[in-house]
């Protein structure tokens, strides 16, 4: 593959992410990985549901008493918006508009970082209340489920940043277009998982 080949919007294919065999392979492989991730998160959710509110006798923390909705609401809105901004980034990628794509990715990263900051704040808050990781089966299940999602956010952000830095100078080509596309796909998947986290953990937790 020729990295130095220059494209214009007129020569740029409709689906640059699957225009080469390498791209197509990555594309299919990544979707399969997402299927595996679905099962992974399902396992974590299932464990959380089985261990919800379970702890040593006399445990003071329950989901209904612990979680507060305003913060979660803010986090949800931020993450949903970042999903949209990454859609914009891919829109510009398909139009072969590199600068606009980088800009929208930048916004996505900023929103992601805000989300992450709020999550760290939230965890810190709980730990200060005395709801630590080793506290009970409930706390372990909660931190591992939400923390795994958080780790995915960290990985997604690192991926975006690495791609943006690496390709800042050379622009879009057939070699990196699939990578941008997949990173955005990953980001949407993270959002899908969050939809279930705020529904199952927080909303259903609060109503007891």
């Amino acid at each position, binding site marked *: *593959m020729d*990295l130095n080949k220059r494209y214009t919007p007129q020569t740029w294919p409709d689906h640059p992410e699957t225009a080469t*065999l390498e791209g*197509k*392979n990555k594309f*299919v*492989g990544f979707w*399969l*990985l997402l*299927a*595996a*991730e679905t*099962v*992974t998160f399902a*396992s*974590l959710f299932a*464990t959380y549901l*089985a*261990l919800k509110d*379970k*702890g*040593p006798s006399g*445990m003071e923390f329950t989901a209904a008493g612990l979680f507060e909705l305003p913060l979660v609401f803010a986090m949800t809105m931020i993450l949903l918006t970042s999903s949209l901004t990454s859609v914009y980034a891919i829109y510009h990628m398909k139009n072969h508009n590199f600068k606009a794509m980088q800009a929208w990715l930048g916004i996505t990263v900023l929103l992601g970082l805000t989300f992450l900051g709020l999550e760290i704040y939230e965890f810190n808050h709980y730990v200060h209340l005395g709801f630590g*990781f*080793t*506290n*009970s*089966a*409930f*706390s*372990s*299940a909660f931190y*591992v489920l939400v923390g795994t999602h958080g780790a995915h956010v960290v990985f997604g952000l690192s991926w975006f940043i*690495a791609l943006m830095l*690496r390709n800042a100078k050379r622009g879009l080509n057939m*070699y990196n277009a699939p990578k941008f596309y997949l990173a955005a796909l990953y980001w949407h998947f993270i959002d899908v998982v969050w939809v279930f986290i705020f529904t199952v953990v927080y909303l259903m937790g609060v109503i007891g």
Partner: protein
Amino acid sequence: MSSNAQKTGFGATIWDYITTVDHKKIAILYLISGGFFFLVGGVEAMLIRIQLMKAGNDFLSAGTYNEVLTMHGTTMIFLAAMPILFAFMNSIAPLQIGARDVAFPFLNSLGFWLFFFGGVFLNLSWFLGGAPDAGWTNYASLALASEGHGIDFYSLGLTISGFGSLIAGINFLVTIINMRAPGMTYMRMPLFTWTTFVASALILLAFPPLTVGIFFMIFDRLFGANFFDVTMGGNTIIWEHFFWIFGHPEVYILILPAFGIFSEIFAIFSRKRLFGYTALVFATILIGFYGFMVWAHHMFTTGLGPTANAVFALATMIIAVPTGIKIFNWLLTIWGGSISFTVPMIYAVAFIPSFTAGGVTGVMQAIAPLDYQLHDSYFIVAHFHYVIVGGVVLAILAGTHLYWPKMFGTMLSEKLGKWTFWFFFIGFHLTFFIQHFLGLMGMPRRVYTFGADQGWDLFNAISTVGAFFMAVGVIILLVNVVMTTIKNERVGNDPWGDGRTLEWAIPSPPPFYNFAQTPLVRGLDPYWIEKMEGNKEGMIYAEPLGDIHMPNNSFIPFVMSLGMFVASFGALYHLDGDKAWALPVLIIGLGITFGSMLVRSWKDDLGFIVTKEELIADQERIQREAQAREGGKNGGLK
């Protein structure tokens, strides 16, 4: 062989294999390391049988026995059977669909090295304070109570090698989805490729629950979490569920490729198209699908309640239907054929009664109330050895003989192969048939000793004798391999003479670029079709001869896996509290892994081009060699 590795010599060869991304060389790596772990697991099996040779034996202590039985199971499933099957999948499946390589050559190499380092890590436990001792099922209450670091070696080792398996699974799936030659529709794929596909799908969806379960175990043991700690609200049944949600599909991950290998063998050595190909394909898919809905039959005695037990009992019974379909289709494949009893075919023929016996005891265990008696007794031990040894191991031995020429270019001795077969086969039935009755006579599994007053002495002694027969068979196989390698008599494209699928249309071993021109597939069993139509060249092609783009070798997968290996030691010893070096080791290990990931994504690796001229030269060399061989003597079987 490869034009980009001109250097020869021992060191250069080692370096070539460490950095290779060629699916055929990775297959050889899988075969060698899987074979090594097979021997390790075999030695452990012999220790078990020696200990149980007579009542009240004191050959092994109680604690050591539990370590040996745990490592026997874990090694055989994760480090021997799966990798050896991966060897055949890697080597053969891309050739069968006419692909130039796998979809992700780099990840293929990474998958192997993760498996390898995970396996080495797990086995190092023997030398570093004791192996895991809670059985390969590693049930949570016992695992949490186990002292020392054995269980931690198990958890971390299986995590690493589990990532390797997941990567391998995705790689096979994408290869089969995207890289089939023109004309190779899904319903023209050879059955071995089909079973590779379904088994890979099972890997993709079954390994995540195991990984999650093992992570919980790691968190509980090393970082103070409480998933399985009953006093803190935890629940050990969660482990059982996760283990078996993975564990049951895992059985099919092993047996389906075995079915695939036997399907190829039946067709080749009966000179007949597979009877009911479509039914075989759909039976394969159905088995894979049902595999996810029956896990709780491993937990009938856990106390899940009659409703759950009844539902899972019925679901389990249904699996017998597609399996039965397969057995009868194989029988009808050899019916009316021209059966040649080569070594692979003898294994395949022996497989049918052995596996049927294992299958019917499986149905018996599906009867939940009866399983209350059978569960955790020697009946179960007999049953799963009948399916795993009678199915998977026979397939591995058959596949070794069948594909040896394709992988190494030489034929294993048929005579020694038959000796191996008879020792192994007789030993196998001697060892395990009698164990059904031991179980019915009340012998629980995983006991390190038994009293003289239980009435189990004679049958246990017979079982041990059988194990020695099997060991002799394996030793003969090793002798066979060594002698064949020393003799080094090269063979042609289709050494068995009756090859039907694409892999037999190209040289043994194939050149590093596989097909010089991508073949055009005109039906099921494409090579057979061309042969029957008298096509001298073997194949017709879908494209003109042209430049070929190949991936570069890479050292990064090895380093990345090594980083995980190093980090695991850090994690393992970190919580001892008295080892200041542990945390730095953990960080350095992870640093190596993430650093090499970064290098990989930063450095563009665009591969290299084999030009048309180089290709023509290489093809001419291959032809010259073939002519020299034909001149020397009539190579191959025919």
